[in-house]
């Protein structure tokens, strides 16, 4: 067991965990943040994507101990006082989710992409979603939602 100290969704936390605990397991089982989902065991599906120090990370590819001292954001951080984040609203408006299992990873990837501030279009969004699998939507509405959500985020800042 080793003590890991990090900031998750703006809250400082310090817990003793087994050294081999993955960041995804740490978030789900130790912090009870169930929004980060596990869809595979080879880092292919992207349902577990979170943001660590501003960068998207598949939280199943990283030990929690490697995130010591980091700032971690999960899907639970997006909603502000019950008010949906513009990207969440866009996913709702564009019917960009069906079963919802890949959605948290999609949202975190989308928010990080939008925050880069670069011009994005359909092709670049499709390329940036390389690491996120969805089996329900055929991606079309996800791409449309990300373009709309990113635009909303730009106009609000």
């Amino acid at each position, binding site marked *: 067991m080793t003590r890991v100290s990090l900031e998750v969704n703006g809250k400082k936390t310090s817990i003793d965990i087994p050294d081999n605990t993955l960041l995804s397991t740490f978030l*789900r089982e130790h912090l009870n*943040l*169930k*929004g*980060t*989902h*596990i*869809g*595979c*065991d*080879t880092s*292919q*599906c992207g*349902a577990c994507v979170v943001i660590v120090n501003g960068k998207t990370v598949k939280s199943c590819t990283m030990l929690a101990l490697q995130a010591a001292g980091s700032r971690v954001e*999960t*899907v*639970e951080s*997006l*909603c502000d006082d019950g008010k*949906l984040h513009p990207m*969440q609203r866009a*996913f*709702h*408006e564009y*019917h960009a*989710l*069906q*079963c*919802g*299992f*890949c*959605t*948290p990873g999609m*949202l975190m990837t989308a928010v990080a992409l939008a925050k880069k501030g670069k011009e994005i279009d*359909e*092709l670049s*969004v*499709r*390329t940036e*979603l*390389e690491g*996120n*699998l*969805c*089996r*329900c*939507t*055929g*991606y*079309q*509405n*996800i*791409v449309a939602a990300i373009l709309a959500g990113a635009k909303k985020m730009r106009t609000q800042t």
Partner: protein
Amino acid sequence: MKALGSIGKSIKRSEDKRFLTGQGKYVDDINLPNQVYAAFLRSPYAHAIINRIDTSGALGSPGVSLVVTGTDWLKENYGPLPCTSRINTFVGGEKMKVPPRHCLAIDRVRFVGEIVAMVVAETKPSALHAVELIEVDYEELEVVTDPEEALKPGAPQIWDDIPNNLCLDFELGDRIKTAAAFDSAHYIISRKIKNNRVAGVPIEPRGAIANYDDDTKRLTLFNSSQNIHENRDAYAIDVLKIEKEKLHHVAPDIGGGFGVKNGTYPEPPLILHAAKKLCRPVKWVADRSESFLSDTQGRGQVSTVSLALTKEGKFLGLRVETVGNLGAYCGTIGPFTPTAGTARTQGGPYGFASIYYYAKVVFTNTAIMAPYRGAGRPEAAFQLERIIEETARELDFDPIELRKKNLIQAKTLPLRTAMGLDIDSGNFVEVFDQALSLTDRTGFSARASAATRRGKLYGFAIAPYLECTGGGSKEFAGITVRDDNKIELSVGSHSTGTGHETSFAQLLSGYLGIGVDSIVFFQGDTDRTPFGGGHGGSRGMEVGGSAVYEAASTFIKKGRLLAAYILGVENSRLQFSNGVFFVSGTDKSVTSEDLIAQSAGSEVINGEFGYGYLNVSATFEREIMSIPNGCHACEVEVDPETGGINIVNYWAVDDFGTIVNGMLTDGQVMGAVAQGIGQALMEESVYADSGQLMTGSLIDYALPRAFDVPNIRIQYYEEAPTKKNPLGVKGAGEAGCVAAPHVVFNAIADALRNFNIESLDMPLTSEKIWRTIHRR
């Protein structure tokens, strides 16, 4: 009963918020106090005798509380998982051969991934560690994974008492009449056509938690199931041999199903057994690798398809002979897919006077096969549209004209097809023309020339399809008026991401004239829904929605009596419209919402009409399946340097009858088309000759990613609602899977018209395309 305006509107989903905020509740999000974890030892061999299992190492491992093997399982007198396929008799009248499918391998393993032992321990890591300590002495046997090979004399025998590995044979249609049509034909074109074996891969892996209440002697199973009632009956009655009421089956949010979560599996009864034995909750959630090994898979057919036609290109007859892979055991309805599942829509929307379909269903040393989104209709459509395309190429017919001239004419409806499907509505010619005009044919040559200038090959294909939907024929819907004036709506089917919370509430809101916000939706709990037909066969809206209609009708009938009492008028004078009960020409009226508010908790009304008077339980049972249809088209660009394929345009025109919520319907079409594209271009479950699964992870099994699928332009043909259900709905959930594979394949074939594509089968990977172009 006329509906209010909300039906037909693209109302946004009420379930979204919890999914968007990470508050969805899937099986893996549930933990029960004091729970332990199960892990399974799975066979590393595709076919072997188990000489001995030594569990002592596992039993002595820290934290382990239970180890169960096949021998232990039989001592409990548990039964095998049942096969409930309605198709169960050989052509010759003999009964289908159903080997016992026990939850644990008994003395012999028959596919890689079959469960040999279960370990239960305090933590998941300790359970997994203990699994490693079980020693098994296997004696390897010869393996067969290919169903055609399995039928040959001298092939390894998977079941000692099932000769030639043949589970069942099946025929449909008129063999003699079809033979006569072939005798009279000017042309006969035959091809061997393969339908690749694929994995469903819902992104949420399967999982379950079992709990036992020693006071009530009742088991509870939280399970990622898309079919809770039938699964419960199988687990309780057939396997555990307890009354079905003693098993409470709950499905929380389900992260995609596609058929994979429809049938029964060994893990739930195993952990139910453990929960009872240990009096502790037992949890198991599959890893993705475990899912690839043990989830049911789909398609996997090899067919000889022959088309007979006149000199002018009029279709005379169709003959399809199929060998279907069943895996090592009969899955819950495994034998259904390659038999009736694939037979029913043979011939598609074309006017065939005679069709003959024959299938053999065969055991192999592979994981169990089951319906996967479409369950036979994609196979049938692929067989048909490939042979038509090949016919057009070989005989130099225009593929568009050849199809159009053979379509069933609307004026001949209603009719019964050569395969016995009753088509009551639709207009295949108009649907075809609508799709064709959507594709901008006049602009094709410019697009193709532009591609050629870039060094690309360009191709186009268009084809209609015929569906049949409705799945399980019977569904429950219930309405309960709560004391807080809200209405609970419960339906026995289950959403696997398909938006029932929204669309069913939308229906009820439209019928009763109450706000969607005042409806609370329930599903996925056998204690709250007495029965249900699960989620399969695109039945959600067609059968489930119709049950909601029946519940609303009964509610209004009862509401009329209550309204008459409240208004002090004869109920025969009351009319109901737009959510209001009223007496025409007077100011006497009361709304549905008022009725609900006044009856909720009212002692007077309870006294007069009985407690819970407005609560309703309704059943809808469809008679015959509805026949959705449509026409899809696409254009592809092939890069001869790399074999890479880019689907440039994809168009869909679908006749789903009445559209209740176009946004949700679009979502179904987009998702199913993407799965169809996946099957056409990249997906395949590959077994080595040794029986090892070569596509056991998402590294080896290719799922379509965002850059693999195009934007799809969708239109609906809404002029032909069906009369087979009160909504006029024809199921929409699987059509994209039926329509897409052959359209994509044929467009690529068109792009490769100057090359020999005879040996090409799905998936059309870039490697295969490159080899075809470069003759390597």
